[in-house]
């Protein structure tokens, strides 16, 4: 277990260090989020009640599209100089390689999402300080589900010529339950409805989704990477 965690940490630290030097994924995904949020602020009246109800949908659409930009780079950066071969032939378990990359993507995506959420709060005059921690919890769970599936499919599509298009095409249909749960919960929380009997089921859906796909990804990653 300790060698698994050590290898995962080593891979995650490597990916984050590479990203800090190039800022490729962050710049692309944050710029995209910013553009979408600004454009939508022109289309809707930022102070309207209607906006409160669609805020969850808007935010998670931004998060998931921004996520695709981050996740597409994840295994693609290993193609440069055949680095993936060196990782797979090393004694690090393939599940640790996957877990490390997922962790790095998760942290990176959380940073993008927090920055986008701050922009959203300013542009749309949203106050959710009372529900701040529940919103963070939903973001953590939703982002983990998106990252696990995205990283898995990033590995699966890494050798395809059309991988930039294939990744979202394959990932979004699978993400529907998680996105539905995250959107509903976020809209509720933004409207001032706390987590309770009415919406707790969605939190369970989100947690269950994360658990199932994390287990499946760890089990099948060796087949994906080695065949």
């Amino acid at each position, binding site marked *: 277990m300790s060698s698994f965690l050590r290898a995962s940490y*080593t891979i995650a630290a*490597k990916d984050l260090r590479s990203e800090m030097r190039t800022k490729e994924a962050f710049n692309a995904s944050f710029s995209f989020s910013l553009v979408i949020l600004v454009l939508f602020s022109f289309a809707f009246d930022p102070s309207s009640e209607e906006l409160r109800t669609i805020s969850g949908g808007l935010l998670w659409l931004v998060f998931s599209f921004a996520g695709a930009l981050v996740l597409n780079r994840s295994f693609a950066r290993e193609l*440069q*100089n055949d680095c993936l*071969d*060196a990782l797979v*032939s*090393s*004694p690090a378990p393939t599940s640790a390689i996957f877990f490390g990359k997922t962790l790095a993507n998760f942290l990176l995506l959380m940073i993008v999402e927090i920055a986008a959420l701050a922009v959203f709060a300013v542009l749309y005059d949203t106050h959710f300080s009372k529900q701040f921690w529940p919103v963070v919890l939903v973001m953590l769970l939703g982002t983990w589900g998106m990252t696990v599936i995205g990283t898995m499919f990033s590995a699966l599509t890494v050798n395809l010529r059309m991988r930039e298009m294939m990744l979202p095409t394959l990932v979004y249909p699978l993400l529907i339950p998680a996105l539905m749960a995250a959107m509903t919960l976020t809209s509720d929380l933004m409207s001032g409805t706390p987590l309770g009997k009415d919406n707790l089921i969605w939190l369970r859906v989100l947690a269950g989704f994360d658990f199932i796909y994390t287990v499946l990804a760890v089990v099948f990653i060796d087949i994906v990477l*080695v065949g």
Partner: protein
Amino acid sequence: MSAAALEVDGVWKYYGDFPALRDIRLSIEPGSTVALLGRNGAGKTTLLRIIAGLSKASEGSVRIQEADVRQQATRRRIGVLGHGISLYDELSATENLVLFAKLYGLKEPERTAGEWLERTGLGRVRDGLVREFSRGMRQRLAVARAFMHEPEVLLLDEPFTSLDDRAITVLQSLLADAHAAGRTIILSTHQLREALEVATHVALIQRGRLAFSGERSQQMIDDLGWLYRTHGEN
């Protein structure tokens, strides 16, 4: 007699319906240096990738020191130098070597990385990013990465291709040291002279089949075309 360092048993590899490897059977003794020869597309790289655990055989098995190649302990005993340098451009030379030293579970990653940087003549550029390195420097760093954990079995795919003089010298010296230390080396190559100079054994692959396997003879060095004329297809 000691157990084979490497045992390839009836390995087939299909790409779709096309058999890239056909019933390869090969047993390599510990301490041997095997030159894996064959023309382009013969199946050398496919075989090396299967031996390295980077690809699965469609049929048959590969065992390294009697253990499955995908076992964690077995992979620690293998060093792989493929076509690519397998280094991260945006990391420094030290960061690259420390990364792999950690993945191989070496006890003092920073110290080991420093030693190998000195050994390959890259000590003065240890903090330079790989993307700023010349081709020769990148290749020497790739050699350091593959040899750093002192593997018992070295798998080298076209190791001399496009190396500069200094990198060739470094690689030949490391190969000689590895051979003297009793390590098993398998190298695929088109450069017959360099390969036969270091090889103790030769394996020739023709269209996915093992056409010849045996000890290297003086005749092979004296007449570089002899092996292909005698055992190969024209």
